[in-house]
């Protein structure tokens, strides 16, 4: 038996292309033309922060920003994101912190990340990166959302552990902190 291990599944790798992820140009080689943005991020660029809970756009665990728009990375063709700015949870950092800093510690957390940890909004954590991205997106668009607006905006992010109570508490905390700082 001969092994043809080129990582393309023998399906014919497409031409290499470049994605801008978290402000950095990343060359993608060996990917197949049909590969999703989620697959390329997780398995070719070593950015597993976007998660793979359903891979059909129902759970929000793969939430990323493409040119500032919140999308499910599992539903996006990776090649279609060429020329766009892709932001993943790995690119979320407190103001002043260097994105992708390998030594990221508690002090480098964004207000949303810190609130989720401190309010108890994290249990198994599989939905958490998606919530981090989605909450940042919501609060960037709507600085002072009402409770129902928060629920509607986050209804695309499933969590099976928390019952959402501590996640809502975390969002409320961030809204309050940002209002106080304005």
């Amino acid at each position, binding site marked *: 038996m001969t092994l043809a291990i080129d990582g393309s*599944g023998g399906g014919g790798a497409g031409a290499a292309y470049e994605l801008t992820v978290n402000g950095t140009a990343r060359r993608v080689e060996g990917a197949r033309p049909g590969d999703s943005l989620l697959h390329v991020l997780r398995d070719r660029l070593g950015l*597993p*922060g976007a998660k793979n809970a*359903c891979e*059909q756009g129902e759970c929000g665990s793969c939430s990323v920003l493409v040119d500032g728009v919140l999308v499910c990375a599992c539903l996006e063709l990776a090649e279609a994101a060429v020329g766009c700015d892709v932001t993943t949870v790995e690119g979320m950092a407190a103001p002043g912190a260097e994105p992708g800093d390998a030594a990221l510690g508690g002090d480098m957390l964004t207000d949303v990340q810190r609130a989720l940890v401190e309010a108890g909004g994290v249990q198994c954590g599989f939905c958490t990166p998606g919530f981090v991205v989605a909450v940042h997106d919501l609060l960037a668009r709507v600085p002072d959302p009402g409770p129902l607006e928060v629920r509607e905006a986050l*209804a695309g992010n499933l969590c099976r552990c928390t019952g959402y109570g501590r996640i809502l508490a975390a969002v409320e905390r961030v809204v309050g902190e940002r209002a106080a700082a304005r």
Partner: protein
Amino acid sequence: MTDVRTPTRRGGSAGGRVGDSPIRPDGTPKVQGRFAFASDLHAEGMLWGRTLRSPHPHARIARLDVAPALALPGVACAVTAADVTGAATYGLIAADQPVFAADVVRYEGEAVAAVAADHPDAARRALEAIDVAYEPLDPLVDAGAAAGAPPIHPDGNVVRRIELRHGDPSVWGDVLVEGTYEVGMQDQAFLGPEAGLAIPDGEGGVDLWVATQWLHEDRDQVAACLGLDPGRVRLHLGGVGGAFGGREDVSMQVHACLLALASGRPVKMTYLRDESFVGHVHRHPARMRYRHHATWDGKLVAVEAEIVLDGGAYASSSSAVVANAARFACGPYRVPNARIDATVVRTNNPPCGAMRGFGAVQVCFAHESQMDRLAARLGIDPVELRLKNALGPGDVLPTGQAITGTAPVAECLRAAVAHPLPPPAGPGLLERPGGAGRTDDASRTRRGVGVAVGYKNLLYSEGFDDTSEAQVRLAGGVATVACAVAEVGQGFVTVAGQIVRTVLGCDAVVLEPADTASVGSAGSSSASRQTWMSGGAVERAARLVADQVRAALARRLGVAAEGLALTADGRLVGVDGAGAAVDVTVAEAAGDEAFVASAVHRHRPTTALDGRGQGEPDVSFVFAAHRAVVDVDPDLGLVRVVQVTTGQDVGRALHPTQVTGQIEGGIAQGVGLAVMEEIVVDGGLVRNPSFTDYLIPTIADMPEVLATCIEQPEPGAPFGAKGVGEPPTISSTAAVVAAIRDATGVDVTRVPVRPWDLV
């Protein structure tokens, strides 16, 4: 490779003791996306494994040839039943499930073969290329007919039957209410798919990083199926994205190891969501006929019940689930006479096993529906009827076992109903039944309120030798804990640190990665047992370390060790040889010298059930009560759950925020079972294996939750803490349905409640 070892915040952690709510040690990497879940793992040169599954619920395998798959580019190897090098079957309690089906498939999704290739798509194409042909057989899908049907498995169709007889079951009461109740098949729906990475060690053994609930049990099952000595199979915990019972059984573990050993390369397997729906066991569907007898003034006289659980094709933990259903069939009430027949049968439906609440959930829906029926029949308030019959300490259960610990049933119920009722729904779309569908007519929407109470056992029962082992090392002010607990999200990693800080008076605690090679079994992350069992092992090991430090300090000071007292906050207090006061933390007293101790924690022994379902099968019990408020659109049968309040018996809350998280999360799953969650199985085929069609509560569906913890320290439990994970799921479903009945007057007898049940 991944390294999920994460030190806690060091220094100044006054908030890190038992009873505080420190942050999770794994919280920071989880919010940063840096925490390595099993599906995130990667190894150089790894292959992707995928599983060929039966499309039929029951069929003979007429032909199976993997050669066409092997001929495809990128495909490294394929394995079938013929390639299983050890035991052909596995199972949690009885090894009745084939690693790969050899001659016959017994459920849709049963594994038939597995392949490994260099890209997920290559693996998918390899599955399509496998030459397989089936001769379909009639599926046995009616659980009620299974016992009398031709056996679909050599072990027969009745997995276990319990005939519990307590007191004089022939006694009749003044009044009698009857009902038949059904519970649909619920899925754990953990978000992290089944996943693992198997790496051959080059010497015939294998390392497997995997998301599981019990590393050592998996190790033993995997080693048996590989035909290897358990020492040559090392399991390591990959990050676990939720579990809820669905990871108690082996899924991809054996397949990935077989592929890795066959190819000589690392093999990663990650299920897709549709595969996950057939790749793990589910909550047993149940059909339950009940008859309650009571006196005119509302005292329960007797309960009769016939319970049939559909176990699906393989046994899994069915025999333990049905025993729970039998033992807790009467609910948390004094019932002097009982006749409970509980059976779990084999069918060609998807296999069922453990899910949060484990048999107690199904019967709770039935016994609480019966209590409401009885209250209506007697004209007694439902809360009052429950209080009149509530179990308390010392009471005797239907097994004949007396409650020796705490049993705050009345306290839980009073606390649940003491919370304020919510205001009427506002005009916001998300506040109306049907939500953004804008379908309800506010003038016709009806509100209802219902209550329910439930209970179950903590820890493993029926004579099981339930143990957990831990090792604690203290040196240089840092305590290092080794314990093979599967952290599945519940927060054991936080609680373990709190316990160690409390006993040793230190701030810095490091948890070693969990694996099978460096420490003994911690048992399963199930049955609400890890805080008690592994928390107990960690506490015990830490106390042994404290004793060593005390002896060393006493030697240094030239005093008797007994002269130094270990305080509840981890300090050694006394006087030295010169009469001067000594007051140091254990960690300070240890200095740079290393102290190490291991401990195995066992709970007190329990017994098997005898032929009449009598015995001393349980260690401890945990109780909760729920009150639910719903709004119902009676025209479309749509329900909005507005509020759930609870009083929950927690023993002692070691981490109040995490306890709250367990309560809210458990109630979400109970609400889901009440109004939306069901795996629809038609002729043995799963019709909705996706999050598009299997709905779990979103943040928009989730009601307000108000919780009161009833803290009565449990004797024998570490710091008095009971497990808190399961109770929120037991009676919240029944409370929601009671509220729906109250709102609509419709006699709902099945969950989940569907729109067409109400119109």
